[in-house]
């Protein structure tokens, strides 16, 4: 069944960069003390993510630390997002959309796996701007 479309999709989904981040997560471990902290679950599959941030007086992210468990997609997403936001300001991060995260991951995702990928962004956004802000970003 070598090179069916699905085989390719799957190979794409688990491309090297994703597997590398999943196996060697960057910024792993919870920061104590920290300025921002939030934890959430994906109720449907049990993924969990605990994110901690240090923010300097100018609003810049100076440290990222996270911990959690979940599939390769959710772990890689947390790892890559953490790298992405380090050094950015809280204002800059606001502009970050679901699409930009998915672009960063660069892999094809079905709706149910989308939830795995987006857990890290959800935790980040709710942690920084509150639940309402995240809700508003939802489509209908």
């Amino acid at each position, binding site marked *: 069944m070598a090179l069916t479309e699905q085989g390719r999709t799957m190979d794409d989904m688990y491309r090297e960069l994703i597997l590398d981040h999943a196996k060697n997560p960057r910024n792993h471990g919870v920061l104590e003390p920290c300025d921002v902290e939030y934890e959430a*679950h994906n*109720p*449907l*599959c049990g993924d969990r993510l605990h994110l901690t941030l240090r923010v300097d007086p100018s609003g810049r992210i100076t440290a990222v630390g996270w911990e959690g468990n979940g599939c390769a997609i959710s772990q890689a997403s947390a790892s890559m997002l953490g790298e992405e936001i380090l050094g950015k300001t809280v204002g800059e991060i606001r502009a970050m959309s679901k699409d930009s995260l998915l672009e960063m991951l660069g892999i094809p995702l*079905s*709706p*149910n*796996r989308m939830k795995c990928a987006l857990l890290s962004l959800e935790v980040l956004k709710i942690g920084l701007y509150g639940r309402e802000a995240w809700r508003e970003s*939802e489509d*209908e």
Partner: protein
Amino acid sequence: MPSESSGGALDVAGLRSDFPVLQQEHHPGVPLVYLDNAATTQKPNAVIETMSDYYRRYNANVHRGIHKLSEEATAAYETARVILKRFINAGSKREIVFTRGTTEGINLVSQTWGRANLNAGDVVLLTEMEHHSNIVPWQLLSAERGLRLRYTPIRADGALDMEAFRKLLQEEPVKLVGFMFVSNVLGTINAAQEMIRLAHEAGATVLVDAAQAVPHQSIDVQALDCDFLVFSGHKMLGPTGSGVLYGKRALLEAMPPWMGGGDMISRVSFERSEWNELPYKFEAGTPSIAEAIGLGAAVEYLNRVGMAAIHRYEQEIIAYALERLTEVPGLHLVTPERAPHGAVATFTLQGIHAHDVAQVLDAHGVAIRAGHHCAMPLHERLGLNATARASFYFYNTLEEVDCLVAGIYAAKQTFSV
């Protein structure tokens, strides 16, 4: 041709061919004239096929599966939610909770919002024309809590007494106003928007039983500004076991869950649980997946026909039906003749019990309903024991009204009245 007399808007003959039940004979040589649409409507091929297609091609449980069947089933189930959201113009798809029907929707509200908000002595204001499903749940809660149930009276012409409604709202604080949009017996279309505005001015929360409204006219819950609105899928071309509770998001968020189980939780431990986000908090367990998808297909069918065209055409049918029925000697119309009203004609016949009318009509191929139509208090209020009801949908024709009238004359002959 009904399709022409409706101003060319509705090709009724063409639409009828979409409904398998309507193609058949009721008895050998006797075509079916289905006039029991307020009880449940027939289903077009599109709805039946959509459900069969789910079972034949992508049947799977939703929300939790990673495999392709579950992905497809989840997408179809959630797409149905969006279709329903657009159909009643809800603000968010999270405000659409799938239920088994109107009855479950009202019980969900009474047992969650009601238990959280209604206490001893609180007033729940209903109307004298309510269906049992909007009376008994409040009586059940009242037995627990000691509520005071009030009923806005109806006038002699079958309309709600709006003066009395205003007075009841002012006399004492009212916590909840619950009323039917369109009566399944009288056909009365209540002034929903005004009632909601008055109720809100008085500080009450409003639940609208739209079981007989959503199938027949275009509904906009944001324009209405109702807090809760419930309806049944099976009365609008959809499958049995389907229905919707619409609730304003802030209200649904604040409500405790009703049933516990899978899908409605975000975390469970031996000691306690946390609830999932809307609407899942209110959809415990494996939902009625094929039914929700089938209801979505029904709404798409209705959208293609056009709710405005349906409403216009039904007004024509009911006007003709009332005109023909008033000609029958000894026939007493329970449905008031003033417009606007729903596509329901309810009557009694002097000297013949409603069941016997229905029985004779059945022999003539005409399916109507006889009894109290789940509105015993209304019948008691009207001093009637049982009534006969012919109820129409957009696939009915003026010729079918003639069959109804012919059947009534046959009943009079059988009973020599």
